[in-house]
């Protein structure tokens, strides 16, 4: 039950973009340096995010990417659907026995909805605020 490399790197890169987009667009080489991710890989991830309407690419010497919508309008579900596809914990193996269809409904679907509640209930803005709050508490602990 693991999130793919694309899902892990893609979310990290997109959070980095959101954190650094105060002064216009963010270059992939900047994300690559800050996040220790390969530029090639970022290019392919951002092509998917662009196609899905999560980011917009800006051409030119000072080009890069910006979020296509405000961070509070992008949920984790929007992001993970692009990066991971279906986030369900199970594939439908065919309901050959009543035990299996019972467990699909009473266990696996229940786990899926608990994950979905986090994904739909958390926006990119929430993630940024959470990072800021943790930085603040880390700063305070150094005083």
């Amino acid at each position, binding site marked *: 039950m*693991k999130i793919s490399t694309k899902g*892990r790197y893609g979310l990290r890169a997109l959070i980095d973009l959101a954190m650094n987009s105060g002064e216009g667009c963010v270059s992939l080489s900047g994300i690559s340096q800050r996040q220790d991710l390969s530029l090639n890989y970022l290019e392919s991830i951002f092509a998917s995010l662009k196609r899905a309407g999560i980011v917009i690419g800006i051409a030119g010497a000072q080009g890069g990417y910006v979020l296509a919508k405000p961070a509070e309008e992008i949920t984790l579900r929007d992001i993970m659907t692009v990066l991971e596809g279906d986030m369900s914990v199970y594939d439908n193996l065919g309901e050959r*026995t009543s035990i299996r269809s019972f467990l699909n409904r009473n266990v696996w679907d*229940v786990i899926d909805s608990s994950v979905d509640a986090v994904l739909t209930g958390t926006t990119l803005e929430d993630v940024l605020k959470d990072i800021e709050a943790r930085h603040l508490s880390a700063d305070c602990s150094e005083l």
Partner: protein
Amino acid sequence: MKLSTKSRYALEGMLYLAVFGNEKLLSIKELSSGIQVSAAYMEQIFFSLKKAGLVSTIRGAKGGFVLNQPEDEITVGKIIRAMEGNMVPVECVSSLSACKSKVRSSCISRNVWVRISAAISDTADSLTLRELKEKYIAENGGRS
């Protein structure tokens, strides 16, 4: 983010054992035909469940498997962990040192995985075999 089929068959096998294993002990053969997987695969799965202390075997002509813990202490979470080792969607959730990134100590995405992981384990740890058995019997009677 898929569970292995091993975990799914393990839960199916455990529920089957809880529902149908009271009158008589069930063998691998009976469990595998009830779940409709090969006996070799079922044997592998029950070996892991036994190693995790969730089932035990009784030898003899009428031998077979029994649950080794009270039904309300066997949770879906315990069964998944017995099969997968852990239940985290990204390794860093259980061990930050599993991440090889240079920036792991200031990772900006780990907390998202921690939250998703908590949602999964809170749900899986709250579902007990007793509850599932009672609900299954209420819905299906004694049919598999």
